[in-house]
C-alpha cells in the first residue's frame, strides 16, 4: 500500500514549492520563536511600524542638526541601496554605473532649479514638476545604459556600466563648463519648493526622504510580488530557462535598469536640493562602493536588507566615525561582538580575550622598559588604553602604518591556518589591530571609512554572501 502524504497540496501546486515553509530552518530556542512570530505579521503592517519608528525618532529623541544630517545621509543611502537592489539583487545584473543615475538626478534638478541655464534669470521650476521630469529622463537613460544587457551579461555588463559611471564624471567635469560648472559644480540651488510650500529645514528634508523611502518600498513591494518581480528572479536564476518559459528576458532586464535609475535619480534630486549644490566628485567610485557595501551587508535581494544595510553603513561610518571617542567604542564593540558570535566554544572566547589583554600589558611593559618614548604617545581618544595597554609611540604615524600592514598580513595568515594555531594567532592579531587603530586609524577617519567599506565587501562575500537579512540562494541543478 502506498504511503499517503500527510497533507497533499492542492491540485496544480508543486509539492516541492508548497513545502518550502517546512524546509525553512529556524534558529533553535527563543530566536526561532521570535522569528516565527515576526513572520506572522504581514508585510504592510511591518512597513507601517518601521515608518512610525522613523517618524518618531526625531520627535522623541530630539536630534541635533549633525544627527539630522547623518539621518538624511542614511535615508539617501537606504533609498539608493533599495534602487540598486532592483537590478543587482532581483534581476541579477551587476550595474557598476549606478551612481551615475544618482548624479544625473542631482544635476538634472540643479539645472532646473538654478541660474545655470537661461541666464540671468535661470530656470526655477517647482519641485512637483522638475522631480518627475528628471525621474522620467533618468528612466530613459537607464534604458540606454541597460541596452547592452540584451547581449552582454556578468563581467562585460559590469565593465560597460562602470565605463558609463566613469564617463558621467568625465562628462560633468569637462563638457560645457559654463553650463555644468566643471569641477566647481553648480551652486546656489533652490530648496524643494512648489505651491507656496518651501522646505528649508533639515527636519523637513528628513521627513521628505522618509516619505520617499516608504513610498519606494511600497511601490517596489508591489512590483516584487507582481509578474515583473517573479520574472526578474526567473531571469536572475537562469535567463535561458526564463526565456523558454516565454518571459521576455530583454524587456525584463531593461525594466530593472529603468526602475533602478528612476529611484536613484529621485534620491539625487533631493540630495541636490538639500545640499543646494552639486559637484562631480559627489558621484565618483567611492560613493558607488558605499552603496554596494550597504546593499551587500544588508543582503542583496532583500528589500528590508537593503534599507537596513544602507542605514547601518551610513550611520556607523559617517555618524560615529567622525568623533574619535565614539569610533573607538564602535571599534572595540564590533570586535567583541564578532568574537562572541563567531567563536565557539566559550573557553576559546575567554582564552582569546584574556590572552589579548595580558599580551597587551606584557608587550607594553617590555617595550616601555626598552624605551620610554616608544609608549609615550596618546594619539587616540582613549588615553588610558594608550598609556597602559596599546603601544603608541610619541610619533605614531610610521608605527601605525607598520601595524596596519602587519595586521593585513596577520589576517591573511589567519585565514590560512586552522584549529589552535588560529586561536593562538588571533591574540597578536587583535593586539596589532588595536595598536593600528589607536596609533593611526582613529586619527584619519576619512581613510578608515574607505578601508572599512572595502573590507565589508570582502568579508561579507566570504562569510555570509546572503548578507544580514538575505535568504540563502538554493542552487537547483
Amino acid at each position, binding site marked *: 500500500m502506498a504511503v499517503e502524504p500527510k497533507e497533499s497540496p492542492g491540485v496544480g501546486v508543486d509539492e516541492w514549492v508548497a513545502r518550502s515553509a517546512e524546509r525553512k530552518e529556524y534558529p533553535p530556542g527563543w530566536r526561532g520563536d521570535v522569528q516565527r512570530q515576526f513572520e506572522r505579521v504581514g508585510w504592510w503592517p511591518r512597513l507601517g511600524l518601521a515608518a512610525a519608528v522613523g517618524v518618531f525618532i526625531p520627535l522623541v529623541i530630539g536630534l541635533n542638526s549633525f544627527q539630522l544630517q547623518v539621518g538624511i545621509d542614511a535615508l539617501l543611502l537606504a533609498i539608493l541601496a533599495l534602487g540598486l537592489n532592483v537590478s*543587482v539583487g532581483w534581476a*541579477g545584473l*551587476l550595474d*557598476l554605473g549606478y551612481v551615475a543615475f544618482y548624479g544625473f538626478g542631482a544635476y538634472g534638478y540643479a539645472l532646473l532649479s538654478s541660474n545655470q541655464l537661461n541666464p540671468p534669470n535661470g530656470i526655477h521650476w517647482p519641485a512637483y514638476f522638475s522631480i518627475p521630469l528628471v525621474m522620467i529622463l533618468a528612466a530613459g537613460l537607464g534604458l540606454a545604459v541597460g*541596452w*547592452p544587457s540584451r*547581449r*552582454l551579461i*556578468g*563581467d*562585460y555588463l*559590469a*565593465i*560597460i556600466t*562602470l*565605463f*558609463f559611471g*566613469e*564617463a558621467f564624471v*568625465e*562628462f560633468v567635469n*569637462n*563638457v560645457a563648463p559654463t553650463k555644468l560648472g566643471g569641477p566647481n559644480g553648480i551652486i546656489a540651488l533652490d530648496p524643494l519648493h512648489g505651491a507656496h510650500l518651501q522646505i528649508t529645514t533639515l527636519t523637513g528634508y528628513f521627513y521628505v526622504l522618509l516619505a520617499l523611502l516608504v513610498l519606494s518600498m511600497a511601490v517596489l513591494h508591489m512590483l516584487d510580488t507582481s509578474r515583473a518581480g517573479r520574472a526578474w528572479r526567473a531571469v536572475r536564476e537562469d535567463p*535561458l530557462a526564463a526565456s523558454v518559459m516565454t518571459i521576455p528576458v530583454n524587456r525584463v532586464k531593461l525594466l530593472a535598469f529603468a526602475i533602478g535609475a528612476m529611484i536613484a535619480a529621485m534620491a539625487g534630486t533631493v540630495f541636490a536640493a538639500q545640499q543646494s549644490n552639486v559637484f562631480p566628485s559627489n558621484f565618483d*567610485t*567611492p560613493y558607488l*562602493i558605499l552603496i*554596494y557595501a550597504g546593499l*551587500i551587508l544588508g543582503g542583496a535581494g532583500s528589500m528590508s536588507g537593503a534599507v537596513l544595510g544602507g542605514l547601518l553603513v551610513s550611520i556607523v561610518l559617517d555618524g560615529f566615525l567622525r568623533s574619535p571617542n565614539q569610533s573607538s567604542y564602535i571599534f572595540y564593540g564590533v570586535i567583541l561582538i564578532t568574537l562572541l558570535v563567531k567563536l565557539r566554544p566559550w573557553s576559546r572566547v575567554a582564552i582569546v580575550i584574556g590572552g589579548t589583554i595580558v599580551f597587551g600589558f606584557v608587550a607594553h611593559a617590555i617595550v616601555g622598559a626598552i624605551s620610554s618614548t616608544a609608549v609615550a604617545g596618546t594619539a587616540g581618544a582613549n588615553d588610558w588604553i594608550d598609556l597602559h595597554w596599546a603601544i603608541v609611540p610619541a610619533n605614531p604615524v610610521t608605527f601605525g*602604518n607598520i601595524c*596596519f*600592514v602587519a595586521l*593585513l598580513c596577520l*589576517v*591573511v595568515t589567519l*585565514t*590560512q591556518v586552522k584549529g589552535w594555531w588560529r586561536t593562538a594567532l588571533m591574540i597578536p592579531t587583535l593586539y596589532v589591530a588595536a595598536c593600528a587603530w589607536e596609533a*593611526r*586609524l582613529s586619527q*584619519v577617519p576619512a*581613510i578608515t571609512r*574607505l*578601508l572599512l*567599506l*572595502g*573590507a*565589508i*565587501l*570582502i568579508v561579507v*562575500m*566570504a562569510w555570509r*554572501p546572503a548578507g544580514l537579512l538575505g535568504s540563502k*540562494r538554493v*542552487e537547483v541543478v
Partner: protein
Amino acid sequence: MSKFIQELVNGLTQGGLYALVALGYSMVYGVLKLLNFAHGDLYMVGAFVGYFVLQWFGGPTALVVPVPIVLACMFLISGVGVGGLGVAIERFAYRPLRDAPRIAPLITALGVSFLLENTMLLLFGASYRDYNTSAFIPFSTGIHIGGVNIWIVQIMVIVLSVALMFGLERIVTRTQLGRQMRAVATDREAAEMLGINVDYTISATFFLGSSLAGVAGVMAGLAFNNIYTLMGFILGLKAFTAAVVGGIGSIPGAMLGGFLIGLAEAFITGYVSSTYSNLIVFGILIAFMILRPTGLLGKVQLQKV
C-alpha cells in the same frame, strides 16, 4: 609627419603598458572566469615598489650604483613582490569563492581593489610622487631626427613589454605549466581529474599576471614620472577592455588590443582633443564591447545548456 611619428611612439609606449596589464587580466579571466578589478591596483603597487627601490639606491639624483643595475633591481623586486601580493590576494579573497555564484567574486574583487587603493593612501598619502627619470636617464639619450624625439626610456618600455609578451607566450604554449594553465582554463574539473594541481596552477597564473602588472607599474613610473594611489583604477578598466578588444583569453589578442587602445588614445589626444580624449576612448570601448564582445582574435563560444 613628425607629429604623426611622435604620437605613434607615445601610443606604443602607453599601449605596451596596457598590453602588459591586459595580459594579466586575460590570464586570470581565462583560468577563473573572474574579472579581477584589483589588477589595475597591483600595477599601482608595482609603481610604488619601484619608486621605493629607486629611493633605496640613493634616489634619482644620487644613485650609488650604475643605472642598468638599478633598473634591473626595480623591475625584479617589483615583479616578484607584486606577483607575491597577487598570489596572497587569490588565496585570501578569491579561493573561498571559487564555487560561489559569479557575482560574489566580482564584488570581492571590487572590495580588494578599494582596500588596496586606500591602504596605499593611508601609508603614502594622496600626493603625487615623482620618479624624476630624466635625472638619471637624460632626455638627450635616444633618437632625435627632425622634430621627432624618442627617449630611450620609451624604446625600453616598448621593447621590454614586447619581449615579456613573447616570453609569456612561450611559457603558455611550450611548458608544462602552460599546458596545465590551458587545461584549467578549458575545464577545471576535467583538469583536476587528470591529476593537475589546480590550486598550484591558479596561484602560478596569478603570480605571472600580477608580476607583469608590477613591471608595467615601474615602466609607467619611468616613462611618465608621476605616480599616485589612484593611477590603477582607470588604467585597469582600459586594460581589461584591451583584453576584450583583442579577444579575452588570447595572449596575442591582449597585445594587439593593448597597442590599439594606446594608439587610439595617443592619436585622439594629439589630433582631436585632449580634454575629451578619455570620453571618446570610453565611447569607442563601450561601442566595441557591445558590437563585438568576442574581440578581434577571440572565438565565438557556444553556450552549453
